[in-house]
């Protein structure tokens, strides 16, 4: 594993599979009487959230705690972050506190890269969603969920539907799923597909009805109503009619196909309530799997010395440094 997880593109196939397999073991911890492992005892994980996201923060918090790490939450509300303290100053504070990992959520694309590469901190950096860039742990948990239902993803056909342009989830998923050998189709109105999407490892379509019968999984993305005002689409009603997943459209799916949503859902917009609550929907399970996947990521980033296995002396030194 590399030292940071900033983008799904950081992971090659072996690394992605290692995380997913490890997550499988982590998930079984939840079924045991003691849902905790000592793996990260004495390690400090900071959840640095510049943007509100209770779900993701709780997921990382649970993951860190189940591995016995000390978890410190540092959120924008009611802290120096909302008083305009810079990312740099915050980073220097975390460094002084001895954080081993910083889980960062930020509205600015690339903020985790800055944190990891600017020399401000020595800790591992995990991207928990940055702007309209990426959200790699979400992609990992989505892949994990798909693997549980569909098995090996090699050759599986995945449709990702909705506001791809503004979606960090779509970016990370497209990259990770391609790495895992899946065939990804992005479905959206042309206004919500990014410029240059033709260079992504995916195919694109404007036609949801034509894509659904050929899909093993369909992932619906949240579409904010405000996009309407910027002329991305004419009205919520027209969007739902053309790209929303309702019971009729769900009927176009193969019997084994699953319905996913990274949340938070806007019922009635991109997904109808009966679809969200249907048996094909794995949306609740995605949340459960999120903790296991984040445990795997934190464990693999933090449990070892981070050094290549050479001589015992090197390993010992590296371990001591990490403790300091």
């Amino acid at each position, binding site marked *: 594993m590399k030292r940071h997880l900033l983008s799904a593109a950081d992971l090659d196939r072996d690394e992605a599979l*290692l995380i997913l397999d490890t997550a499988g*073991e982590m998930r079984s911890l939840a079924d*045991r009487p*003691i849902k905790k492992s*000592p793996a990260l005892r004495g390690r400090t994980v900071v959840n640095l959230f510049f943007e509100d996201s209770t779900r993701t923060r709780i997921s990382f918090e649970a993951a860190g705690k189940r591995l016995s790490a000390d978890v410190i939450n540092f959120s924008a509300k009611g802290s120096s972050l909302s008083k305009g303290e810079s990312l740099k100053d915050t980073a220097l504070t975390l460094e002084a506190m001895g954080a081993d990992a910083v889980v960062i959520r930020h509205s600015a694309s690339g903020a985790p890269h800055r944190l990891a590469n600017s020399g401000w901190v020595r800790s591992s950096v995990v991207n928990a969603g940055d702007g309209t860039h990426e959200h790699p742990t979400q992609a990992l948990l989505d892949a994990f969920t798909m693997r549980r239902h569909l098995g090996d993803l090699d050759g599986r056909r995945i449709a990702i539907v909705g506001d791809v342009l503004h979606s960090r989830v779509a970016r990370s998923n497209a990259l990770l799923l391609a790495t895992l050998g899946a065939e990804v189709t992005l479905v959206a109105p042309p206004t919500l597909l990014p410029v240059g999407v033709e260079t992504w490892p995916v195919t694109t379509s404007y036609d949801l009805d034509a894509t659904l019968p050929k899909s093993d999984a369909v992932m619906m993305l949240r579409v904010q109503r405000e996009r309407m005002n910027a002329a991305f689409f004419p009205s919520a009603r027209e969007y739902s009619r053309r790209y929303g997943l309702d019971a009729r459209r769900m009927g176009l799916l193969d019997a084994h196909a699953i319905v996913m949503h990274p949340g938070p859902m806007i019922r009635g917009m991109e997904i109808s309530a009966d679809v969200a609550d249907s048996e094909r929907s794995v949306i609740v399970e995605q949340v459960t799997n999120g903790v296991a996947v984040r445990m795997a990521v934190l464990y693999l980033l933090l449990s*070892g010395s981070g*050094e290549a296995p050479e001589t*015992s002396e090197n390993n*010992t030194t590296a371990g001591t440094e990490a403790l300091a």
Partner: protein
Amino acid sequence: MVPTHTAADRGAERVVLDAEDIGRALTRISHEILERNKGADGLVLLGIPTRGVPLARRVGSRIQSVEGVSVPVGSLDVTMYRDDLRLRPARGLEHTEIPDSGVDDKTVVLIDDVLYSGRTIRSALDALSDLGRPRNVCLAVLVDRGHRELPIRADFVGKNLPTAHAQKVQVLLEEYDGRDAVLIVDSGPGESAPGSGSMEEDVTEVTR
């Protein structure tokens, strides 16, 4: 997976147990377990990955053929409980599978291929205590090569194998390596080749 390294790669190697020896040792261990436990009642066999797991299955099937009852067999990964976890690069987890019967109030037999420093077994005891509270726990190993660093001993031993620190004990099993054998390898210039056969589950050797 057949070892690809030749003897010349890593010094002289010597077969100390062949397939038949291993078979006989496991049969004897199975009988000893039954004798000590006065039957198969309440037994749970937990293999320590990787090579402890097929050994546990083999012991399980021997017990079944003797007693005619199926003994729960599972696996117990100790990776997250190792005392050298942060001294080495992060490692993936092996599979832990606890039989549905659980471990509470059972006689758990931990099964591993080689007993060396004892640190793996220490980790296994910690891992086990997070899973429940067995009535008692005992330990079966195919090879005990000595050099203990913790107050741990095996209850059932396939073969005691006096070795020097510099030597390595390599266990090959049909399930992973295509054949059954226990080798002693005098460390040569080539050093260890992880993945081709089990080179000690006890990790102290590598980190020493």
